[in-house]
């Protein structure tokens, strides 16, 4: 019991004093997962749009496959990426193992199925009438696709936020590809795993609290976006309710 209370008081102290180690670890976590999320979004939106707007043999199977990968274990992604980028692997010459860039690659691979799959369903949820309306208004094929993606913007944005949540909270890829090297690839989740093993509970609890705060922020953003789907977005954001 006293380990927990002393751990919590130490954690609060570390956060309040903006302990440089804690801040550096949190910043790297944010950096890696944000970049991975942005990369995944940049790939998934065109890819998801391509799959949604084209009919081809095996489309259903492909979507089922993508959905299966939503819950792929992070250590499996870690293993596959490790094999690809380790010195003797086919991508070994890039020297990505034990680097933040390697972790970004791993997390991108981890979340691309989620963003792609959910982009496909977001586009699918746009009423067929909208598509007909756009075509009837004289849209080219490309103009129609762009407009439908814009129409699905809230659903797509919440997908991206969800994917960020998965990236920042995962430990398998970060550990196996980053290696938890102090000052280089040590992120929130890997530090918690390590410090807990070493009995340094205060540090772990501090990082755990930071992770939870990030999760809270993610949830708040999600809620704001979902509110954007309804008529009351401006009101939620504090603006006028017309």
């Amino acid at each position, binding site marked *: 019991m006293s380990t927990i209370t002393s751990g919590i008081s130490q954690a609060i102290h570390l956060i309040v004093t903006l302990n440089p180690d804690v801040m550096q670890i949190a910043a790297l976590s944010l950096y890696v997962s944000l970049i991975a999320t942005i990369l995944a979004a940049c790939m998934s939106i065109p890819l998801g749009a391509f799959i949604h707007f084209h009919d081809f043999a095996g489309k259903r199977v492909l979507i089922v496959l993508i959905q299966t990968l939503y819950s792929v274990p992070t250590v499996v992604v870690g293993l596959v990426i490790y094999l690809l980028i380790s010195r003797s692997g086919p991508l070994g010459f890039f020297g990505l193992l034990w680097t933040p860039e390697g972790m970004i690659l791993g997390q991108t691979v981890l979340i691309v199925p989620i963003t792609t799959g959910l982009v496909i369903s977001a586009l699918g949820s746009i009423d067929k009438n909208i598509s007909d309306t756009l075509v009837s208004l*004289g849209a080219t094929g490309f103009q129609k696709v762009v407009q439908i993606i814009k129409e699905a913007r809230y659903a797509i944005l919440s997908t991206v936020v969800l994917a960020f949540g998965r990236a920042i909270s995962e430990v398998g890829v970060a550990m196996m590809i980053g290696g938890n090297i102090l000052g280089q690839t040590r992120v929130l989740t890997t530090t918690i795993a390590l410090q807990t093993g070493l009995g340094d509970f205060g540090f772990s609890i501090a990082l755990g609290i930071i992770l939870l705060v990030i999760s809270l922020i993610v949830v708040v953003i999600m809620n704001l976006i979902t509110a954007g789907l309804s*008529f009351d977005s401006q009101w939620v954001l504090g603006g006028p309710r*017309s």
Partner: protein
Amino acid sequence: MGTRGSALLIRISGLFRRAGTRNILDAIDLEIRPGEIFTLIGPSGSGKTSLLRIIDLLDNPTAGKIFFDGTDTAATNQIRLSIRRRMAMVFQKPSVLNTTVAGNVAFGLKFRGVEKIEIGTRVREALDIVGLSHLSDRRAVTLSGGEMQRVAIARALVTRPELLILDEPTANLDPVNTEMIENLIRRIHQHFHTTIILSTHDMIQGQRLADRIAVIMGGRIVQVGSIQDIFYHPQNKDIARFVGIDTIVKGIVESNDGGHAKISVGTAVFEVITSSKPGTPVSLFIRPEEVTLAVKDGDLPKTSVRNQLAGTIIKMVPFGPFIRVTIDFGFPLTSLVTRRSSDELSLGVGMAVIAGVKATAIHVIPDSE
């Protein structure tokens, strides 16, 4: 809005659309003239929407040809796009995009690469025409059904289409909004001389708006003509029923004296105008508003009304400001009377009345069955 020397804006020939083995559209031939309001009427599920979507080049026919202003529309995507950009369609269920009202109206112009400043001016104009200027900055998804339909019309109008296609534009609206939309359609037509194709299942609306009417039933165009043709000279019983002719009775031509014929229906004899020869079995179509009622007292009144029949009221059904009165003469005959005249004559079920129908108000077709 020139039509480049073509006398027809749309020419459709031998058009089919099949779903499996069913013909949704069955051998459609149709011609739309520039500048007219052409109304497609038919019951729900008769193929109106399917036909309009093919005309708007949203769907392809299974077989047959459509020419727009003389150009075959079975062409490259580029040509189809340029033809599609000369028309605009308003759908039965209006759908707006999740942006402002003005943003919604601007889409067609944005797609055509019109300059921003001009888009602004033309969007304001279009919103002004439909009376929604004050809602320009509102999020379109917050509008009522009637307002959304007006946005859809403004959005179609703003591109200055040569052909405006309206698919049951008032089907989901209340009477007040329906009247507003109808007036709007009339105003657009007067102002811009836009050719309009309109579909409706409401034959009264067809009557109010159309220059010409086509009746579509079961995927086939069964009759094309003026309001007069369709409502007073329907070509068959199905059309007659659809356009509101309650009384359809079978009879035999007894005599014909230069077009003035006597036709017996059961024990009654009608005088009608027809070229049918004696002995021919025929059907008589009588519109309910053409049947006048009088209370029976003593001798029959002397009027120009040639057909006077004595019968008994068997049913009275309120119908808006009117009452549909069904009278039995050995066969049922329906009359549409105003509530006021019903009150004045104190009509009631079981009462004996005289029904009058002018010879010219009875439409006769030879009986095919």
